[in-house]
């Protein structure tokens, strides 16, 4: 088991966003987090990387056990050293080239020598087919290229798990394919991934594990094939049927 969460709660002010969330993820899993908009999927993912702070719960990551109510900055940083995060809005560093985006974390945070960082970065860029854009600035790229560069940035740090927050939702439909195919290759290569997505095709074909959420709760935690063929709850059945 790579990570697990038990009884995670999170509210913003008086509104409860996540309620009693528990699940676990094994190494090599590709987990699709599904559900309507506003059910807390993104918040859950952000809590796992401490971009949001959960109010309570137990978070086990590799060998560390964290009480989410009292996580220190240092503990959060220690978890982040082993994770990568891919945002809906890419969030590439706008003042850095694609290559610098990828080397930034290696050189500044991991203190990898520059030559080595460059080599690692170029390898990561080649995995997403972006070596020819290494010296381009993010603002000159298409959405799909931006997202692939962002994936390379996360990959270069050799994380134990990659979190994807609706990685194709900000893309032109014509550009989602190139990003999804990169993600599929990663999943097939054994990368552990948690993917918040509305791409049911991807969830069905690539993920092996589905978390289906409604109103801040996990209603179904199932094998992907089982979820799509025999959803247990009425909500999930409707959700699958409504998909194009």
């Amino acid at each position, binding site marked *: 088991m790579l990570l697990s969460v038990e009884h995670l709660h999170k509210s913003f002010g008086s509104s409860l966003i996540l309620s009693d969330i528990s699940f676990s993820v094994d190494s090599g899993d590709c987990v699709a987090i599904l559900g309507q908009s506003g059910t807390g999927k993104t918040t859950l993912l952000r809590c796992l990387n401490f971009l949001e702070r959960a109010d309570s719960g137990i978070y086990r990551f590799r060998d560390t056990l964290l009480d989410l109510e009292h996580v220190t900055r240092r503990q959060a940083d220690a978890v982040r050293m082993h994770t990568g995060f891919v945002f809906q809005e890419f969030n590439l560093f706008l003042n850095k080239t694609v290559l610098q985006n990828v080397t930034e*974390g290696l050189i500044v945070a991991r203190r990898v020598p520059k030559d080595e960082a460059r080599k690692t970065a170029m390898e990561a860029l080649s995995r997403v087919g972006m070596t020819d854009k290494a010296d381009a*600035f993010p603002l000159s790229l298409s959405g799909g290229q931006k997202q692939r560069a962002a994936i390379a940035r996360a990959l270069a740090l050799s994380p134990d798990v990659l979190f994807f927050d609706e990685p194709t939702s900000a893309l032109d439909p014509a550009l989602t394919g190139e990003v999804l195919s990169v993600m599929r290759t990663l999943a097939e290569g054994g990368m552990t991934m948690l993917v918040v997505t509305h791409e049911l095709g991807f969830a069905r074909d690539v993920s092996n594990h589905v978390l289906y959420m409604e109103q801040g709760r996990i209603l179904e935690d199932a094998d992907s094939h089982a979820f799509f063929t025999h959803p247990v709850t009425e909500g999930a059945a409707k959700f699958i049927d409504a998909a194009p």
Partner: protein
Amino acid sequence: MNARVWGILVDSFPKILIPGLTLTIPLTAISFVLALMIALVVALIQFAKIKVLKDIARFYIWIIRGTPLLVQLYVVFFGLPGVGIMIDPIPCAILVFAINEGAYSAEIVRAALEAVPKGQFEAGYCVGLSYFQTLRRIVIPQALRTAFPPLSNSLIAMVKDTSLVANITVAEMLMSTQRIIARTYEPLALYLEVGLIYLIFCTVLTKLQRIGEKRLGTYIEETK
């Protein structure tokens, strides 16, 4: 215009230009650099929401923006000696200009910092950068690009505001011009001449602004 006026203009040109080069420009340059340092610190204090210091920063901006520059010069130059603090005219001018401009520029820099998308910080954290590393390497460079045009505005305004130091006995361009007028009785020609010299200075700065914007904005320029 007759030959006499031309003669006066040609004769006075270096007499006005030299204090421009030896006073106006260094005074502006030193004051502005100090003002930028003040502005960055004051803006970051507010941006990072540091308790107490943030209130002090707001208070400073409130006082400085709410009172005339000339009054501030008078308080420091003519007022402070009353409590035993004597400052020479030029250091006094530098001090007042830096503090005054610092308050205005702090607001420009704060706005530019706040305009950088929050996702830039989050991405920084996710690749392992600390708050200060993200600020220094990612956020501040982008903010400076945004702040550059309005800061250039302030610099150009300051070049002309330095004419106020004539009021605290510094013989800069305007005072030198007035002295020549007192001797020659040609106010129209001479005031136009000093105006032209200010215009030349500001034209050079406008050109430098273009170059600076290009340099700082390679990441934006490339896409145009």
